[in-house]
């Protein structure tokens, strides 16, 4: 199951990220993971939140350009070699990664969580599932 990542366009100026987090805070949206990609003039905030619907609505209402992207989330054992094992599978299955980011924790301290944006989400999901590696569902992510 792929999950929804929210991507937000931000000007590369002081206070812009804070404006966005302010909107999310005011509306009780909890972020599970956040990653920022930046260029000289603008950046893209990519995040996984507990309530995608509310987050998208409040961001749009407040004038942000935001879009939804399907990404794959995996729980991996928080131990040396955990990520390496997963990426090895990606290589074997010839899955092309566009970007990825990680987050630790939540209630479960045994696992780290990885978010992957791949070129073809559906195909990647199927290939990995065939190898017995299951990506997390939206509900599972929200529950972390």
């Amino acid at each position, binding site marked *: 199951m792929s999950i929804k990542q929210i991507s937000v366009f931000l000007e590369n100026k002081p206070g812009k990220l804070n404006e966005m987090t302010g909107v999310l805070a005011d509306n009780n949206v909890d972020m599970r993971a956040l990653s920022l990609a930046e260029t000289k*003039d*603008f950046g*893209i905030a990519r995040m996984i939140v507990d309530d995608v619907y509310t987050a998208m609505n409040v961001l749009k209402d407040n*004038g*942000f350009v935001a*879009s939804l992207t399907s990404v794959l989330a995996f729980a991996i054992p928080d131990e040396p070699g955990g990520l390496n094992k997963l990426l090895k599978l990606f290589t074997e299955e010839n899955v092309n990664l566009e970007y990825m980011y990680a987050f630790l924790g939540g209630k479960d301290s045994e696992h780290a969580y990885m978010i992957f*944006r791949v070129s073809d989400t559906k195909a990647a999901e199927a290939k990995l599932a065939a190898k017995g590696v299951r990506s997390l569902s939206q509900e599972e992510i929200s529950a972390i």
Partner: protein
Amino acid sequence: MEHYYQPEIECASREEIIAIQNEKLVRQVRHVWDNVPYYRKKMEEKGVTPDDIKSIDDLHKLPFLSKTDLREAYPYGLLGKPLKDCVRIQSTSGTTGKRVVAFYTQHDIDLWEECCARAIMAAGGTNEDVVQVSYGYGLFTGGPGLNGGSHKVGSLTIPTSSGNTERQIMFIMDLSATILCCTPSYAAYLGEKMKEMGLGPDDIPLKAGIFGAEAWSEEMRHDIEKTLGIKAYDIYGLTELSGPGVSFECSEQRGMHINEDHFIAEIIDPETEEVLPDGTQGELVFTSIDKEAFPMMRYRTRDICTLTREKCSCGRTHVRMAKPKGRSDDMLIIRGVNVFPSQIETVLLKHGYAANYQIIVDRVNNTDTLDVNVEMTPEMFTDNIGEIEAMQKALVEGLKSMLGIKAKVTLVAPKTITRSEGKAVRVIDRRKI
């Protein structure tokens, strides 16, 4: 079916038009000679008297008037009638130097409103229509001109003036406005606001729009037509000559018919001041031949365009002018290259951006810089930085091939470029020269 306000004039034969122009020009030159000492002096300096002007073939003998003359003669120097005969003034925004203050007798108001009535009917308007005038009212000619024209047509007129966009949309919906008159940038803004309110082109009763008072591109026209579900007509005018309605578009949408029974148009070479043949690009010059209070003789508009007398399918016979590339006042000289904001707009819209942009010109280390800020749109946004950068690069290249110089493109967040309710502020020139 094509509608005309005054078919006998609008569709008159070339001979009839020339006969009207000859008669009116001779009379006008006499009127100006007798009543406007400022222009009489110019004629005397050129060695021309009213006796030298027997027909429009003699027009080229007359001296030009320019914005500088208007400034020098401010406020009463070009007045052709005693103030007691004048009933109105209108004025320009005065963004480029001193305001132009134009005077009108009742006759002048009537002819101006007739011109606007012709424009409304050319856009399909009749007395069955509801015309919402969202141009500013007051000193600006947009509101009063179209308001008067709409009255002449007999349309129900909603004088909303500019501003309060949600109320504008409410009036359009509740009172079934069929024709909208405003600046093109405000029409685009209305469309944007409608989208926000969840309204599409099929939800509103508008069928046509008459948009003018600023330069706009063909691409912007398509955008507005799509968003509002209307046919968008261009209208042209200057306060100096009366206001909107000096020329207007018909259903053909290929150039604006100049009201030749009131205004004679010429195209000149702006450098040599030589009159150029039809079809050649040059500066547009107008002579008003029917105005009493504020007669303009060979007034140099600084608008760059072409004229065509090719037959028009709408049946009107009056000469057509192409959409001006922009006032030469709007023209920027950047690193020695002439740049019109409308050229930048054309490229932006071609690349899928909205017409919300700002051009910032500055001088850094004695070199001009050109920055174009354009708003990111939800349609174009993706989570992939590479794709956005590629789009940005394509735009930079598009601008380079259109303008011949390099511009820096900055993508900014939506709604961060201030919306205008009247004329949009597209250019910020920070150069201190």
